[in-house]
């Protein structure tokens, strides 16, 4: 671990409205994923595994589950003396309170927090992406280039490039151009929304941005283009691993399914870069005499008496006798009762599908079925 001090600011305030029923009561980074995790586990584990021990988590939308889940960061070994995880919600001052108006504004309002740690560098992260990255390597890259800002990028298929913020660089990884969703992309390097700033420059630019009435106070749309136009030293750090933004129901479902199979690209079992979580202690899961599980992830506390195929069963979920679960995700405590059939569906936490109900469809042209937390689906409501 280098002696240069880098802290992380983790943006976790968004509602994630495109996750629909899954974020009705909780923020997107708090949504369950992968059988026992919550989405924010991945960013926090990355920080811990990269030796970044000071993390400010910026919250705003329904943060209660997120707050109690994160606590002091102990579950990620981030509760260090003089460091650790801090929850940073919007707050009131003498002149009243202000909500976070954009990613840059959220960090702007916590400049005092950053200054308290006197870091050399600040890493800006999102709390809703799935990937393993050693940020320390990105930091080394940043230092080696003597950069003002380093943007983490990854190659995407050319035909999809126009959906991303696309970066054009020179042979030395210096950024020449940044275009948000270009119609005719001249590069297939997409920004991952992960930035390392020199602290002084970040604070200066955030203050400028705050005073700019035209700005939307967004890193991608405002801060980066501004720095580029000023001729600052912006460099890339290329990432080539598994990376997903699980921001929509479709991508949430698809990414969950990608964890299955013999050799999934994202290996939950890799020991040198563990994904940590603040999980509760539950007994092993039980498979009944007629239970049948194929190509699936099954969490602790589950009880499976029916048939489960190509699915993710999170902690404490239940599949009754003669019930069938296919291509589906059961979030913690979800119940599929006797004789029910669930296909290509996402069942929210503690939701229930009643006896003999059929939910979802194999027809992939139809939307994935989503049941919100605590919802009970009875006969006639399918």
């Amino acid at each position, binding site marked *: 671990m280098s002696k240069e001090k880098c802290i992380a600011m983790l943006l976790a305030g968004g509602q994630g409205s495109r996750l629909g029923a899954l974020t009705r009561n909780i923020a997107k980074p708090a949504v369950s994923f*992968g059988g*026992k995790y919550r989405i924010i586990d991945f960013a926090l584990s990355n920080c811990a595994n990269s030796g970044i021990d000071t993390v400010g988590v910026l919250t705003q939308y329904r943060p209660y589950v997120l707050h109690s889940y994160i606590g002091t960061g102990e579950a990620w070994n981030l509760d260090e003396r003089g460091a650790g995880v801090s929850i940073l919600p919007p707050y009131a001052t003498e002149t009243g309170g202000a909500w976070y108006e954009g990613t840059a504004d959220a960090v702007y309002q916590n400049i005092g927090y950053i200054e308290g740690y006197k870091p050399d560098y600040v890493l800006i992260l999102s709390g809703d992406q799935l990937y393993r990255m050693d940020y320390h390597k990105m930091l080394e890259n940043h230092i080696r280039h003597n950069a003002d800002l380093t943007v983490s990028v990854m190659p995407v298929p050319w035909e999809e490039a126009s959906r991303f913020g696309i970066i054009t660089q020179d042979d030395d990884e210096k950024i020449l151009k940044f275009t948000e969703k270009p119609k005719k992309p001249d590069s297939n390097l997409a920004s991952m929304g992960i930035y390392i700033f020199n602290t002084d420059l970040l604070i200066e630019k955030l203050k400028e941005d705050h005073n700019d009435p035209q700005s939307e106070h967004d890193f991608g749309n405002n801060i980066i283009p501004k720095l580029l136009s000023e001729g600052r030293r912006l460099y890339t750090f290329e990432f080539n691993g598994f990376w997903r933004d699980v921001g929509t129901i479709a991508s949430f479902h698809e990414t969950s399914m990608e964890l299955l199979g*013999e050799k999934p690209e994202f290996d*939950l*079992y890799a020991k040198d870069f563990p994904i940590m979580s603040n999980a509760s202690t539950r*007994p092993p899961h039980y498979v009944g005499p007629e239970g049948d599980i194929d*190509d699936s*992830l*099954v969490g602790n506390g589950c009880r499976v008496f029916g048939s489960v195929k190509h699915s993710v069963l999170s902690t404490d979920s239940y599949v009754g006798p003669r019930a069938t679960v296919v291509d589906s995700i059961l979030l913690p405590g979800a119940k599929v009762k006797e004789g029910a059939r669930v296909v290509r569906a996402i069942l929210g936490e503690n939701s229930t599908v009643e006896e003999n109900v059929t939910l979802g469809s194999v027809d992939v042209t139809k939307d994935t079925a989503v049941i919100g937390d605590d919802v009970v689906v009875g006969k006639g409501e399918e």
Partner: protein
Amino acid sequence: MAQAIGIITANYSTQNSSMLTDVRPAASLPYAGRYRLIDFPMSNLVNCGVRTVGVVMPYNYRSIIDHIGSGKDWSLDRKNGGLFILPGSAFGSTREGSRFLLRDIDFNRLFLDRATEPYVIVSSSNVIFNMDYDPLIDCHASTGADITIVTRKATCDDPNLSSAWIEDGRVKGMHRGAKYGEDEFLDTFIIKREVLLKALDWYAAVSHLDLFEALAQDFDKVNVMDYQFNGYAASIFTTQGYFRHSMELLDPKIAEELFPEGRPVMTKAHDTPPAKYETGSRVRNSLVSAGSRISGSITGSILGRGVRVERGATVRNSLIGQGVVIESGAIIENAIVDRNNFIPAGTELRGTPEAVLVKEKSPERH
């Protein structure tokens, strides 16, 4: 704020020693896949609000300390009270049937002196049950007994158990062995703290004895009462008993009695991913712990954390310890395979239901 503190005697090795307990004290024997025996007495105390728990250590205490740490996972990592590590007296407790040696308690008298609670709940780590201690405390307080022991009607004949001779709810004596229907002692009792301190003085000359051995002549003077427990309990004193009682957990009704809602069994937290089933796996009537990866066939078995069962491997009626790897084509039947074992392709390990085969613990692999 319970009225009691707790003592768990974790320094008892099963008399009928097997390869399993040669390498660790009985208290750290794995149970129900991801637990250790000591999790059950610890959780019983914590679930009824006890926040001061002393654990009497065996000579080989490392595995217990590794497991319980500062007690954080049992909410016992506290500024006041919390978990106390109590060294056992020099020679440990290997005498037959002696789980509550006076000298172990006397050696840690300060723990009792410092407490302010009126009662002490004492239990060993060899009997597994999930019990609400609140009615026990209430019963003990209301009868004004010196000691109240927890018993149940023995469900079989077993010379390894202890049983009590009870008249009108009062214990008149105790003896080794229990026959079906007798009052089997569940190695758990509640005692007035002041009485326990006095008993240490009364019996100072025979401190090598178990508390109940010392009491043998005095059941007419000391008021020992009985409290009947009606739930599931398993006494672990032999390897066969360990195997048999483990397998009972495959009965969902028994699993529910041991892991009821509202009285969770706490254990050391681990960062283990969910279990993964590959295409072609076939698992029936089994308990599978997190982190296991299954491509083979498993029936009527219990798997610890991080077990790998490769394609074409078969596991039947067996206990498989944490981190065991079972290669393709291997067959395991009626066996206990302790942690970290590597079972090569094609190997067969077969015991019989009456004589279970034990494959002892293997050193850690890299």
